[in-house]
């Protein structure tokens, strides 16, 4: 297996009142070549923090990153800002959620795409301009010459996201991190952008880390899925395995919360309680235990680990074995 990126025991903590609270707490995962790895979870589970840690986009005075992020024998977590700049944009690039706030409002989009080329390549001005036009064409823009001279506010949301993607792929990176790339878009545009991402990935063979909270998006494009809860990975599996046989109580509860056409009951499953805030996160035992109080304490592991229950399918803690849903009428179902 060609492993592109390997994360080992990553802890990212934020400083609050002189103590560090880990938002990402011991995450290990690997990204392979030609793969779309989806990271799913609700807000506050640490999925965006994980992405930003890989890119090194945090203020180092207020955050603490421990652990290793290995890319081609280099530990990205230990690099200085200058060394990171050599990697960012060239080898690893990022697509942000909100293209309007990620793009520079005072620069023509063509120039913004060119920026990465100026920094990382020795192409001449003519060659760069040419490359920008090919890139725009590649991301499905009809009239690249005209669009390159426009400002972000003159473009629609879908077009802006296409520009973001063009910026991300301008130096043919090996890894693309897409942080909620379609959340701000309409469904029709979302479908187009996702198709575009998959197509580009097939062409370039890059690995994509797709961060999203939308399980529908995951089902449409991902190859492998990591489910995060409260800073930890709770389940990791190939796409079909996860959607057909989800095991961890959290994953299963999430699936039952999706409104679906062919469902018999019209009540959606609700996960009891709320996602604990960073300060009140339980740091020992099963972090999901509080939200499934009807499962006896003995079912949880004292120190929950990821267990491989079938090839490539990892589940944290042992509570999934005795998990069942509770309806309000007191019925149990699995």
């Amino acid at each position: 297996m060609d492993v592109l990126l390997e994360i080992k025991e990553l802890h990212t903590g934020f400083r609050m009142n002189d103590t560090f609270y880990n938002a990402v707490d011991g995450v290990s995962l690997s990204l392979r070549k030609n793969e779309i790895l989806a990271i799913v979870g609700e807000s506050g589970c640490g999925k965006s923090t994980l992405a930003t840690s890989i890119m090194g986009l945090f203020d180092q005075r207020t955050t603490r990153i421990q652990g290793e992020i290995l890319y081609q024998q280099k530990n990205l977590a230990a690099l200085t800002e200058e060394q990171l700049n050599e990697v960012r944009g060239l080898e690893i690039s990022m697509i942000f959620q909100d293209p309007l706030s990620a793009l520079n409002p005072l620069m023509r989009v063509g120039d913004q795409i060119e920026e990465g080329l100026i920094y990382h390549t020795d192409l001449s001005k003519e060659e760069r301009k040419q490359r920008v036009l090919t890139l725009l064409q590649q991301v499905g823009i009809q009239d690249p010459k005209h669009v390159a001279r426009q400002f972000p506010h003159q473009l629609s949301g879908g077009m802006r996201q296409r520009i973001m993607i063009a910026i991300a792929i301008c130096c043919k990176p090996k890894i693309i991190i897409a942080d909620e790339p379609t959340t701000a878009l309409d469904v029709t545009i979302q479908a187009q952008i996702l198709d575009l991402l998959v197509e580009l990935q097939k062409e370039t063979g890059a690995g994509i880390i797709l961060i999203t909270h939308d399980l529908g998006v995951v089902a449409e494009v991902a190859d492998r899925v990591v489910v995060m809860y409260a800073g930890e990975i709770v389940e990791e599996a190939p796409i079909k395995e996860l959607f057909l046989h989800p095991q961890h109580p959290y994953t299963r509860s999430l699936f039952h919360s999706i409104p679906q056409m062919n469902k018999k009951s019209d009540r959606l499953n609700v996960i009891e309680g709320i996602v604990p805030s960073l300060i009140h996160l339980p740091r020992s035992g099963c972090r999901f235990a509080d939200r499934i109080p009807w499962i006896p304490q003995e079912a949880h592991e004292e120190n929950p680990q990821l267990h491989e229950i079938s090839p490539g399918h990892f589940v944290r803690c042992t509570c999934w074995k005795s998990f069942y849903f509770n309806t309000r009428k007191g019925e149990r179902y699995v």
Partner: protein
Amino acid sequence: MSFMQIHNLKVHYPVRGGILNSVVDYIYAVDGISMEFEKGKAYGLVGESGCGKSTTGKVIIGLEKITAGRICYEGVDVTNSNNHRKSAFNRDIQMIFQDAHSSLNPRKRVQDIIAEPIRNFLKLTPKEEKRKIHELLEIVGMPEDAKYKYPHEFSGGQKQRIGIARAIATNPKLIIADEPVSALDLSVQAQVLNFMKEIQREYGLSYLFISHDLGVVQHMCEHISIMYKGRFVETGSKYDIYKNPQHIYTKRLLSAIPNTSPIGRDERKKERILVEKHYQENVRKYFDRQARVFDLVPVSKTHFVAATSSMKGGF
């Protein structure tokens, strides 16, 4: 029988420009829509951003001025007459906003937020008012001591429930819900949706559910209208729209919804590209010369689609 009818509603915003800042053009935000509301039913309004669905909600409740058309509430014409603050219409139509956080006054306690419609519309003694607030908090499943807190002390789902408590305080007949769950996480969304269904059943409420999320709309609503550029392209029951879509725009919208099953996704993608191609090729046929959507013609008793009469059989 329907208790409220909207007839050929239009909202046009003037575009000013030129030398004397005169009106040079209009934006047709809502351009001639008609709806009827029956008791205890939920109506869905779906469309892309900018299609005028939020404007429709706002105009019904009276936050925007109507350019043309009529709103009849229980036989009374209430078009643009909402400055009578204590009118029955204002009491019976309430709204739930998309962003619960910015729709709650940060400087008021929860009890004052919920009490506002009560003080406006119901004449209660302070004691009765207190009891009513307790009752409302209980309905939305919040602890009693929540009434002394401020909005920022609650999570997103709880804030949305406070917004709902405020909306149902006057026992309304119709609640306009403008993207009530799109800012919420999946499990919290489930909680709010369940709850909205429950109070609907209990109090015979009607909803106008405005959303861009077709999954949520089909879960909540029996009757769905698809909107495009300020006009309806298709309206019908849930099954009409999902199982038997007629208009090309509806088909395209439906094919773009991600399915939550990874099986068969490659076929779905092919299908999606096919529909998109078909859409690009034939889109002109479905709109008139000014790129306006045609008027609705009936397909069946419940199902209407925008088409010219000559196209009626030709879908």
